[in-house]
Every structure is written in structure tokens, then in C-alpha cells.
């Protein structure tokens, strides 16, 4: 086992929970804050970032990180990475999707189900314990880094960048706990992945249902409509 120093974990908790909080607030406040305070509309991002940073570095029990860590311990490196990526996107006003990509969501959900069933004693695989092994974690960390690069190459920039952030935090500093599983997954991220998966399934179901209805109702007219579109020069 190679575990991080406690002082490093305390700093990580403040930073990571700050990133998670800031990215969540920035997904809500840019729409809400200008309605409440029109004069602040141009400075929402700055206000949120500065406020979160100031609040998180408050000493002891005055910091929300003190209580969040009491309940949840540390966010995984991957969740921290996702928060960082989302924060950058919000900051640069790039388009953002609240949900995880279905492929990532499925992978994290399945991984979490097995890991947590094992942790709760339903299975007896000892998966979590292997997250401390120097051999296993070395192979898995390099594999995860390569997977992150592949994700970026395949145009899943958010997932790839978040994964690389989490793996870097683990490999360089052994954050958050020294266990590779804690770097890649935590129950909050797992819940987010599960919700994303359910939402994606619902979207797919609704789209396929709507598609079949459209196909059923407009099928006889499909040819003329296509002809009209082509005629309009929109192909």
C-alpha cells in the first residue's frame, strides 16, 4: 500500500469539493442569478468561483468541505476531473451536457455495481483490496491513462480529460486515498452515472417510440416531403 499523507488529503478535500460545488453552482446560477440581481449578470462566473474558493478555505468546521468530507469522505479523482472539465466549459461558455456519455455511464454503473456488492459482502471477490496492490494498480493506472487518451482521440473529450485528471492525481500523489478504485469511482459519481444511463435509456425509448409513430403516420407521405426538401435546396 502506498497511501497519501493526511495533510495532502486535507488540501485535496478543500480543492476537490470546491471544484464539485463550483461546477454544480455554475450549472444553475447563470440562469438564476441575473433574474435576482440583473446588475451581476456579467460577473456570475467570477462571483461563484471566488465565493466557493473563499468558503472552502475557511478554517475547520466553518468550511463546507469539513462537513462534506465527514459524510462522503473524498470525491474520486474522476469526479474531480469531470468537475474541472465542466467548470472550464462553463467558464468558456462552451455547450455543456449535464449527463455523462452513455458509454461512460454504462461502464461506471457496471463497475460500481460489482465493486459495491463486493464491499457490502454480497460478493467475496476482494476487488477493493486489489486497488492497493502496486502491481495491479500500476497496470490499471496506465491502462486507464491510455483509455483516457483513446477517449479524447475518439472525440469524447470530457470523459477522456476527466479520466486523465483522475489518473494523474492517483499516480503522482496517490489521491484521494491510495486506492485506485477510489480514484476512479465514488458513490456520488456512480449515482450520476446511473442517472445518466436511465436518462439516456428514457431518451432512446421516447425517440424510438416517436420515430415509430412518425414512421407509422407519415410513411405514405415520405416521398413527397423528401422531394420538396430537395427541391428547396436543403439536402
Amino acid at each position, binding site marked *: 500500500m502506498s*497511501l497519501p499523507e493526511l495533510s495532502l488529503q486535507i488540501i485535496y*478535500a478543500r480543492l476537490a469539493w470546491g471544484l464539485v460545488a463550483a461546477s454544480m453552482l455554475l450549472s444553475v446560477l447563470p440562469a438564476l442569478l441575473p433574474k435576482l440581481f440583473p446588475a451581476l449578470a456579467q460577473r456570475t462566473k467570477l462571483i461563484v468561483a471566488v465565493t466557493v474558493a473563499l468558503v472552502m478555505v475557511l478554517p475547520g468546521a466553518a468550511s463546507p468541505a*469539513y462537513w462534506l468530507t465527514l459524510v462522503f469522505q473524498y470525491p474520486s479523482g474522476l469526479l474531480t476531473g469531470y468537475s474541472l472539465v465542466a467548470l472550464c466549459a462553463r467558464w468558456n461558455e462552451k455547450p455543456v451536457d449535464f449527463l455523462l456519455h452513455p458509454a461512460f455511464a454504462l461502464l461506471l454503473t457496471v463497475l460500481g455495481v460489482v465493486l459495491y456488492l463486493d464491499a457490502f459482502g454480497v460478493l467475496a471477490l476482494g476487488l477493493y483490496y486489489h486497488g492497493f496492490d502496486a502491481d495491479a494498480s500500476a497496470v490499471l493506472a*496506465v491502462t486507464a491513462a491510455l483509455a483516457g487518451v483513446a477517449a479524447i482521440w475518439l472525440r469524447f473529450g470530457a470523459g477522456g480529460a476527466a479520466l486523465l485528471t483522475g489518473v494523474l492525481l492517483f499516480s503522482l500523489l496517490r489521491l484521494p486515498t491510495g486506492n485506485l478504485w477510489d480514484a476512479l469511482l465514488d458513490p456520488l459519481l456512480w449515482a450520476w452515472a446511473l442517472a445518466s444511463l436511465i436518462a439516456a435509456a428514457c431518451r432512446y425509448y421516447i425517440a424510438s417510440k416517436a420515430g415509430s409513430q412518425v414512421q407509422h403516420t407519415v410513411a405514405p407521405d415520405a416521398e413527397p416531403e423528401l422531394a420538396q426538401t430537395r427541391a428547396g435546396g436543403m439536402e
Partner: protein
Amino acid sequence: MGVLRPLIQRPGKLAVFACIAVVATVALAEGVRWSRSAPHHAKPEAVQTVAPPPVTLTEVSRAIIPMPKGVPSAHASALAQLPHGDLISFWWAGSRESGPDVQVYASRWSKGRWSDNWVVASRDSLGAALGHGVRRIGNPVAWTGADGTVHLYVVATGLGGWAASRVVQLQSTDEGATFKVRRVLPMSPVFNTSVLVRSSPVELAGGGWWLPVYFEIGHKYPMLVSFDAHGDPQRLTRIGARTRSLQPTLVPVSNTEVRAWMRDATKDNSVVQQAVSHDGGFTWEDMGPTTIRNLGTSLAVLRLDSGNLLMLRNDGTNPETARSTLTLSQSTDGQTWQEVTDIVSGQPGDEFSYPAMYQLGDELHITYTYQRRAIAHHRMKIHLAKDLP
């Protein structure tokens, strides 16, 4: 929160360079760490395998360890030896179990008497050192390393009851006078919760030790954490696959075989549960349950220097008497147990529970919870068969 949509274009040169740099950094860091890591195969100290003759025990003294004044509740004592031959006892005390004022106290056994107690950990002191809150304080367990450092493990909960427990590792270099928090031991991927300590550690060859721990929410199962001589955790292992066993107490019975005896969490016909390792603690398998009664209460097993095994446990037959008697048994092989004596026997509803044992020279020291109000201490002389007339 939210995430970027997939990029429309392939990553640029800068992104490719950054990706290569990250992978190279990860590979280098992991390679360096891997090359420096040494496999941890420490096993318990070699033990005598010839079946020893039974021992006899005679009581030398009994006492109540000085309790903090005005504190009505005390529970879960632990014993460890100090570098110069004294003993140190730890326990928690406060207004009630799980109360916010519960603290871990210590007292030192020196020259035949217990010192006044002192506080070694509270939820405020742990919270300040850990940088995050602690709701409740629970069982302490202690071990003294070969270098004289006293290592203390304390249950500290997050949000919730004992199911939200974590284990905080502390250490003292001044014989238990003051303790410094080292870390929360990471033992579960679910917010690192529901892992507790109760039983005494076991010495390993090379100066390390095993810390018995257990998972408690829903299914209950035992584990052990292996530490090196510096108190750094090296390995985490589950003991068996049963889901109704907790509070393991570990004892090597031969040079390769280690036994674990455990409290039973089943409600009906509960008996002491057991597991065995045939490879010095690397892998474990469940054994069939013993025939020894255990109505959901902690037990202690100790291997004496002579090789005899002692088991101290409650011998109740119903909920009223579940914890009213503490019975000492001995075994030479870990299979068959012979009752030696009742260390304490009370009326239905009395509580004498959560025993701890430690051998110091030719004396056996026993501490246990006395009516949930105090910690009692018995000192017994160990007589080997060859010493008897």
C-alpha cells in the same frame, strides 16, 4: 455540473502532446513506485507446535481502573504493553454510548497499580487533526511496535450510527502520553464507512502486526489489515466469505495455520464462528461453527507463551444472561476447549463484557466492561504444569 459535448474535430497537436505527456508521466510514476514496492508476505511469529500441557491460573488481584469523574458510561477496553514493561489500557467513556462527549481514555499499569486516567482522543481532537468532522467515538485497539511507538486505532463515525464507522490510526512516541493522528484507514469504497475495530492485533515476524477489523452494515464480515514495522498498512484481506461474523480475534496455532474466532451476528442459535488460514493469513476459508455459545457479544482469544490458547467469552443462555458471566476456557489445539473458571459471574441483566487479555511475564492481565460503568482488571498467575508440585 455538466460535461463537454464530444469534440467535433480530432484533437490538435497540443492536445496530442499533452496526452502523450500524461501517459508518460503516469507510466513513469507507476514504474518508479512499482520498482520500490516490496511484496509484503509477513506471517505471524513462528510458534511452538508441540501440544503443551494445560496451565492453571490463580487470581492475584482485581481492581477497577480509575474512571474519569462524573462520567457514567464506559466500555470496550484494550490492552498493550509499554516499552519498559508496563501495561497501558484504553477504553471509551462518556455520558452514554454514541454520546457527543465520549472520549478515549488511557491508564497505565505500573508497579502494581493503575495511574489516574487521561484523555487521548475526542471527536474534537480527531476532527481538528483530520480536517473533517467526526460524529462519534467508539472502540479503541492498541499495539506497541518494536521501536516503542504505541499505535492506537479508534472507531470514529461519519454521518450515522456505528454503520458509518471509520477507523482512525494514531501513534504515540512518548509511551501513550500524547497521540498524533496519522490517517483514516481506507477500507471501503462506499464513503469508507462501516468498518470497525475491536480485537487485539497479532504480532508478525519482522516487526509488523495484523489488525483485525470488520464490516458491519447489512452483511457483517471480518477482515484484517497487515502493517509493517513502521505502522504503514500493507495489505487488506477479507476473512472467509460468511456474512454474519464480526469482531474477529486472530491466533496463530502453527507455523502456517492461523485461526479466527468471531462473534456471531445470527439471532437464533448463535455460536462462536471460526475461520482458518493455511498459508499464514493470505487466504482464508470458513470453518463450520463451533458449539460454543455466543449471544452476540465480543470474545477474546490469546495464545500464551507456553502455546496454550485461552478464550474469554460470555456464556449466557438467553438475552437476560447474555453478558452476565465471563468464562475462561483453554485449549491446546484450538479444536476442543475446556472451561477453566468464571472470571466474573453476575445476576441476569448484569453486564461484564468485551474482554481483553494480555500476557506479561508469568501473569495474565484481563480487562472487561464492568456494568457499562467502568473497566475492571484482573491479574492472574499462570502456572505451567511442570511448575506444579
